[in-house]
């Protein structure tokens, strides 16, 4: 979906403002939201692509004005409701009104160490990689209504394959519950002028991580 989350190239948001000595969390509730997200992810209630899609589906003004962890909380409520893991009357009541549904796993204290290790998204390839390092490719111009990881600024642009990263879970389909459909993943490097035109800094190079279905031959 072409949404406000797809921010690359926007110029309207003002300066970057680092916060000196920023704490890990600004409030306890932020920490709880983070931990709840990790626990539900460990439980395999949803996959990471579904959770990214859910945050992108927040209304644009909510996306732009709410804090990071507040968006996580809103996104979690949405996913819980959509997946029927929690019902609307329970959200309204602020407590469970019926037992939970079975989930593949539950994060208990003993599993925390394992849960803190990031999972692997590499998968066995079904076919050889179509491109190799050094190949020139053009990204496709796609505008799906659903989740994609090909940003607008990098669509229909010619770049050079810098690295073949292996075969990974394909977010565009995983996000909509259509399975992992592993695809080859490449680091694709663009000249800044290819992205932003002739007046761009000639010494800018930008890469994206591009799944093979995003790519065509020149």
């Amino acid at each position: 979906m072409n949404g406000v989350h797809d921010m690359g190239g926007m110029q309207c948001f003002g300066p970057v403002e680092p916060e000196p000595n920023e704490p890990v969390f600004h409030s306890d509730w932020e920490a709880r939201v983070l931990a709840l997200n990790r626990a539900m992810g460990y439980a395999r209630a949803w996959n990471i692509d579904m959770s990214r899609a859910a945050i992108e589906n927040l209304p644009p003004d909510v996306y732009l004005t709410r804090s990071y962890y507040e968006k996580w909380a809103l996104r979690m409520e949405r996913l819980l409701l959509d997946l029927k893991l929690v019902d609307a009357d329970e959200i309204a009541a602020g407590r469970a009104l019926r037992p939970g549904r079975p989930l593949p796993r539950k994060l208990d204290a003993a599993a925390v160490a394992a849960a803190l290790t990031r999972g692997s998204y590499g998968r066995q390839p079904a076919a050889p990689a179509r491109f190799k390092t050094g190949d020139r490719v053009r990204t496709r111009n796609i505008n799906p209504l659903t989740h994609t990881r090909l940003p607008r600024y990098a669509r229909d642009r010619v770049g050079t394959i810098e690295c073949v990263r292996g075969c990974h879970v394909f977010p565009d389909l995983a996000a909509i519950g259509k399975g992992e459909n592993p695809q080859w993943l490449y680091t694709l490097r663009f000249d800044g002028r290819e992205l932003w035109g002739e007046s761009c800094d000639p010494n800018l190079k930008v890469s994206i991580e591009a799944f093979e279905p995003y790519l065509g031959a020149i």
Partner: protein
Amino acid sequence: MSQEHADHHHDGDHHGDRQHHAQGSDVSAIQLRVRALESILTEKGYVDAAALDLIIEAYETRIGPHNGARAVAKAWADPAFKRALLDDATAAVGSLGFTSRVGDHLVAVENTQRIHNMVVCTLCSCYPWEVLGLPPTWYKSAPYRSRAVIDPRGVLAEFGVTLPAATEIRVWDSTAETRFMVLPLRPPGTEGWSEQKLASLVTRDCMIGTGLAKSGREMPPGEIAP
């Protein structure tokens, strides 16, 4: 009225992304909302409060940029580790035994005199949590996510970093599960320093690419990282 005016409409006062943190009455609303959510999820048997506590404790105390700094310092001090890090950062960092073990797909990219690397996630806020901890708010903010790919020198200037025009700026947009950390340039005058002392020069920002490692000369004699 005038205050609202001043707040919203001064030139350059693009506050769209200023509301980093809920404040005032918003805090209590979101606090209550999150507390209710946790109650529901606990009561339904989906989560365990003790496990939540342990996760938070790990991110507050053990998972942070000091881990990445250790890897950088080791790479500066140990050419074999540097080669291993650049060749397969997942394996190299994994050998250091951090609390949050690195999953697959960690990539270290090396700054040189010719190339300066910078990491962003334009679509969300992907970040190498295992080596750098949780991302700072600015990394997740609209100003950074939007401008890092179109005006990285302008962004660097806001961090006080000015690089020669001839230096290539290489921006890595983390659009998949690959995670990037920058191996910054080793500051001059640090020959013979211990890994621990070197690590004290390695800031979070220099591993994201919005900063440079601290100068060895800035260090008071004998000071080392905590």
